[in-house]
C-alpha cells in the first residue's frame, strides 16, 4: 500500500491487536459519556440531601443513596467529572511543561541542561502525595490546587524521558540534515524531532494519566482536594466505608468508574503502541 493516505480508523484496524484498542475506547467512551451527560442532566443535585437515607437500588435512585440521602448516581457523575478534569489538567501541566523543558534541555545540553536537570532531580525526590500536601497546606484545599500540585509533580518524569530521547536523536543524520537545510532551532526541535519522540511520550502519557487518576482519588480519599459536600470519586469511597455492607453501590459506583478510567486508557494506549514504534 505504497504511500496511500489512510484514515485513522484504517490505521487502527491495521494494528496487531485493534480489539484491544477498541475495547479500551469503548470503556473510555462510557466514562466520558457519563461525564458529558452529567454536564447537562443529573437525576438529582449531587449535594441535595433527602430523608431517603441509605437506600438500595431503586427506580428513584438507580445506585441508591448515601447516609445523608444524597443520590449516589448523581454524585458519581459529578465526581467522575472532577476526577477526569484533574487527571487531564494534571497531564496537560505535567506533559506540556515536561515536553517543553525536556526538548529544550536535551537539544541544547550544556550548563542549562545540568542546572535544569538537577532542579528536576530535586523535584523528583518529593513523593507526589507529599508535594500535594505541601501545596494544599500553602494555598488551601481545592480541586484546582490538587491539579497544580500533581501537574508539577509530574513534570520531572516527562522532562527526563523527553530529554533523553532528544539527546539520543539529535545526533541522528536526519536531524543534522534538517539543521543543514537552514531550519531554525525551534523548527528542528518541534517540527522535526518532536514527532519522533511520540512513542516514548505516548507510553508515558498512558502511565501518567493512570497515575493522575489514582493520585487524585487517593488524595481525595485522604481528604485533600475536593471538599464536602462536593463529590470526588476518592472522597466518596472514603465516606462510604462505614456503609459498605448496607449500600455496596456507594463504594462500588465510584470504584468501578476509577477502574474503568484506568483500564480504558491503558487498553487504548496498549493497543496503539505498536503503531508508534519506528518504521525503520
Amino acid at each position, binding site marked *: 500500500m*505504497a504511500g496511500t493516505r489512510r484514515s485513522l480508523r484504517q490505521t487502527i484496524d491495521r494494528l496487531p491487536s485493534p480489539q484491544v484498542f477498541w475495547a479500551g475506547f469503548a470503556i473510555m467512551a462510557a466514562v466520558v459519556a457519563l461525564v458529558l451527560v452529567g454536564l447537562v442532566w443529573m437525576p438529582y443535585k449531587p449535594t441535595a440531601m433527602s430523608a431517603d437515607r441509605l437506600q438500595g437500588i431503586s427506580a428513584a435512585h438507580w445506585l441508591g443513596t448515601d447516609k445523608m440521602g444524597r443520590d449516589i448516581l448523581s454524585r458519581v457523575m459529578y465526581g467522575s467529572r472532577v476526577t477526569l478534569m484533574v487527571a487531564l489538567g494534571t497531564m496537560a501541566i505535567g506533559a506540556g511543561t515536561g515536553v517543553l523543558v525536556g526538548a529544550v534541555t536535551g537539544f541544547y545540553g550544556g550548563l542549562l541542561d545540568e542546572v535544569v536537570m538537577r532542579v528536576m532531580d530535586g523535584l523528583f525526590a518529593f513523593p507526589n502525595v507529599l508535594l500535594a500536601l505541601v501545596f494544599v497546606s500553602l494555598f488551601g484545599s481545592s480541586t484546582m490546587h490538587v491539579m497544580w500540585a500533581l501537574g508539577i509533580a509530574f513534570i520531572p518524569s516527562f522532562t527526563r524521558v523527553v530529554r533523553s530521547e532528544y539527546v539520543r536523536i539529535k545526533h541522528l543524520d536526519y536531524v543534522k*540534515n534538517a539543521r543543514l*537545510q537552514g531550519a531554525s532551532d525551534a523548527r528542528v526541535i518541534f517540527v522535526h524531532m518532536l514527532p519522533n519522540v511520540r512513542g516514548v511520550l505516548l507510553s508515558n502519557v498512558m502511565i501518567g494519566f493512570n497515575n493522575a487518576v489514582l493520585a487524585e482519588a487517593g488524595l481525595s480519599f485522604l481528604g485533600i482536594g475536593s471538599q464536602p459536600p462536593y463529590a470526588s470519586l476518592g472522597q466518596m469511597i472514603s465516606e462510604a466505608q462505614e456503609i459498605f455492607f448496607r449500600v455496596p453501590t456507594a463504594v462500588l459506583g465510584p470504584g468501578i468508574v476509577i477502574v474503568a478510567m484506568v483500564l480504558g486508557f491503558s487498553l487504548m494506549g496498549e493497543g496503539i503502541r505498536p503503531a508508534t514504534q519506528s*518504521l*525503520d
Partner: protein
Amino acid sequence: MEHRENPTQAGEVILEVRDLHLEFHDHDRPEVAVEDFDLELHRGEIVGIVGESGSGKSMTALAIAGLLSRHALERRGQILFDGQDLLRCPRSTLRHYQGDEISIVFQEPMTSLDPLQRIGRQVEEPLRIHRKELSAQQRRELALRTMDAVGLPEPEKVYRMYPHELSGGMRQRVMIAAATISRPQILIADEPTTALDVTIQAQIIALLRKINEDDGTAIIFISHDLSLVRQLCHRVVVMRKGLIVETGPAEEVFGNPQADYTKMLVDAIPKVVL
C-alpha cells in the same frame, strides 16, 4: 575515459577558504583536524577532496556547510561566501545560506531521512524554510520536477511514500533532490556513494555531473574513492593528516602525481577500472 575541460577555470570565485585551521579541544591535548587549508571554488566547478579516513576532508566539508559544533573546537582562518565569513557570522546568517545557497548530501541515505515524514514533504523542506512565499501547489510542482530530474521513477507516487519504502539508491536520489530543489550555488557531497553498490554509484555520479552541467552548481565532492573522483572532478585536493598534500587539475594530479602520497594512492587504483 574522456578528457573534460574545466568549463569555469576563468569563472568567478564563489567560495574561498583561507588558512582554515580546526583544532579539537575536548581532550587533554589539542588535536589538529585541519591545518592550513586553502581552497578557491569557482562557479560551476567540481572539486574533489580525497584522502584516507581521518585526513580531515569531512571536517573541512562540515566547516563549509556550517555544522561544526561551536564549542570544544578552535577555528582559525576564513571561509568566505557572499562576502561573509561562514566561520564567524551569526547563526542566523548561516541558516540563511544553508539549504538555500549551500546544500549538503551525506554518506548515509538510510538514516538521513526522517522516518516519519513523507518523501514529498522532505524534498520540499528547504522551500518551506527559505521560500515562504511559495504556495503549497507551487512547492509540490517544484518538488515533483526536481524528483523527476534526479531520476526518481513515478515522482507522483514516490512523493507520497515513506523512506522505509525506498531502496538506498532511491533514498540518495531523494536526498539529492532535497539538496538541489532550491538550486544552490554550492553542493557539498560528503561520500555520497560510499553506502551504495557499484552500479548505483555510477548512476549517482552521472546525476551529480548532470546537475553540475544543467544548473551550473559548483560541487565539492568528498571521497576516498579515487576512480570516482577522477571520473567526476575538474580539480582535486589530496589531503592527509589534516594537511593538503597536493592540489591541481584532476588530469594532472592523477596523470602525473608529484607527492609521494598521491603516487601511492594513484598506484592503488585498480587498473581494470581505469
